[in-house]
């Protein structure tokens, strides 16, 4: 019998593709059906936000920070305000802190519901897409009631928040959380024991612990590989040390665990919001020094928070003027795209699609 002569060929999953989230190009070297090498090509959404922010005042930087990671815009605005407040050593009023925590956790639930819908659609199930977005609309309605916008909010200011919650927010919020808790059991029943879903995600693309730490993976992807590290517990910011919640961990590190972990996190966020609504005090919503002509004293700091994707950080350098000298942003997805070639090879293309979807990558964080 003669040996068949085979050779490797290159397939391009181009910038426009239904299942790369945003514009990411993957150049795949294939041997038949199996992937031998992946090379990610990024930069198709490099909008130079950091250069733009060097020529804007601190208050004008807040809507620019929104566009760095638009699915969780509240977290992006919050981390910039946290850095500026640490340099200026400002004290934030209690009501503002509680409102910020409520908005951050609502944003986390909305982001995980979007993950649920889009991941299921990539792997082939179209029904969860409609279910996830239906519940996400309830939360987006709450945001629209408070600040008028559905996606890029421009709500959090340096020193507090920009406006108070209107009447009727609390009842509507509790009703929405009750509906979401009930529907979570629907979502789990739809996919968790489905044999097709299990075949596509269980045991696929295991991310080992040591590789995750070496490449800077953070957030739910790290916690699904067995390491319990959450910045809300390990380096508490705002008033997170007053609330009682658990940090879920899973130990297998495959696609199924990453998907289950995010559904667990929705339940913990609902706990935090209920406790915050119960303990919401009266008072101011802004520090007295928070105004349009805010000037930070000279100094620099790195502020980091736990976003729904991982660690979101801002290194802010101020020279005492009304514009920042340098704003360097760090998004979690930059590291996740970097680690993909090191554990995503030796599988079929369909497994690569499932892997890329459960890593929950958003491209503007990578390119900025």
């Amino acid at each position, binding site marked *: 019998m003669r040996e068949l002569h085979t050779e490797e060929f290159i397939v391009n999953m181009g910038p426009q593709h239904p299942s790369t989230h945003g514009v990411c190009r993957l150049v795949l070297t294939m041997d038949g059906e199996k992937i031998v090498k992946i090379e990610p090509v990024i930069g198709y959404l490099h909008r130079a936000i950091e*250069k733009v922010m060097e020529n804007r005042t601190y208050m004008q930087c807040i809507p620019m920070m929104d566009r760095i990671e638009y699915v969780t815009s509240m977290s992006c605005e919050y981390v910039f305000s946290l850095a500026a407040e640490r340099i200026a050593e400002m004290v934030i009023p209690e009501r503002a802190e509680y409102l910020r925590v409520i908005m951050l956790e609502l944003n986390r639930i909305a982001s995980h519901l979007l993950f649920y819908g889009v991941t299921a659609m990539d792997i082939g199930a179209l029904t969860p897409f409609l279910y996830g977005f239906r519940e996400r*609309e309830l939360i987006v309605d709450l945001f629209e009631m408070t600040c008028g916008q559905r996606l890029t909010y421009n709500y959090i200011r340096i020193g507090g928040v920009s406006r108070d919650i209107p009447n009727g927010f609390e009842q509507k919020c509790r009703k929405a959380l009750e509906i979401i808790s009930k529907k979570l059991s629907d979502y789990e029943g739809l996919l968790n024991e489905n044999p097709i879903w299990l075949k596509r995600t269980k045991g696929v693309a295991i991310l080992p612990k040591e590789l995750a730490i070496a490449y800077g993976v953070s957030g739910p992807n790290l916690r699904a590989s067995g390491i319990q590290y959450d910045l809300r517990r390990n380096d508490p910011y705002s008033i997170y040390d007053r609330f009682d919640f658990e940090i879920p961990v899973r130990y297998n590190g495959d696609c199924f665990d990453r998907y289950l972990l995010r559904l667990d996190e929705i339940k913990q966020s609902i706990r935090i919001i209920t406790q915050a609504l119960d303990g919401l005090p009266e008072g101011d919503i802004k520090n007295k020094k928070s105004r349009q002509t805010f000037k930070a004293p000279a100094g620099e700091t790195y502020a980091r928070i736990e976003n729904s994707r991982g660690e979101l950080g801002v290194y802010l350098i101020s020279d005492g003027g009304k514009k920042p000298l340098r704003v360097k942003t760090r998004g979690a997805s930059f590291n996740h795209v970097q680690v993909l070639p090191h554990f995503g090879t030796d599988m079929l293309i369909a497994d690569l699609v499932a892997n890329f979807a459960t890593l929950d990558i958003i491209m503007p964080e990578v390119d900025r």
Partner: protein
Amino acid sequence: MGLIKKLPAYAEKFPGGGFVTTSVETILHQGQAKSLWYLLFGTACCAIELMCTGASRYDFDRLGMIFRATPRQADLIICAGTITKKMAPRLRRLYDQMAEPRYVIAMGGCTINGGPFYYDSYSVEKGIDHIIPVDIYIPGCPPRPESLMEGCIHLQEKIKKQKLLDWQEK
């Protein structure tokens, strides 16, 4: 479309020939306007609002619009999101691959003139009408799903006003 393109030249010579042309136009418009299939091309923030418009609350399917994955099967490209200088040749290539008749909607401030990135950005293409011809502009950052649906309804009105003679010149 070969025979239909030659139709006005022959039919107009007879009395009552205009009646045939307009009836054919009505049937063509019903087919083209009421089932526009769009290409999934979401780059940045406006892509999330595009997904929300296609989801449960604001449904695109009631206008007959469904998403397709490849430009060969689509006749509308909703360009949602910022286009950078690196992405611009790829957008031109996608537009060239679409079959005629084809339409373009520019959604969001970034595609109209650069949006919030007009000043101080070294890598953003300031408006997509340098690259491809645009039919409808929808302002907003990001525009609400209701705005996007109104833009699509305007596009349907625009299609209904087209005449067969326009196709002869193309």
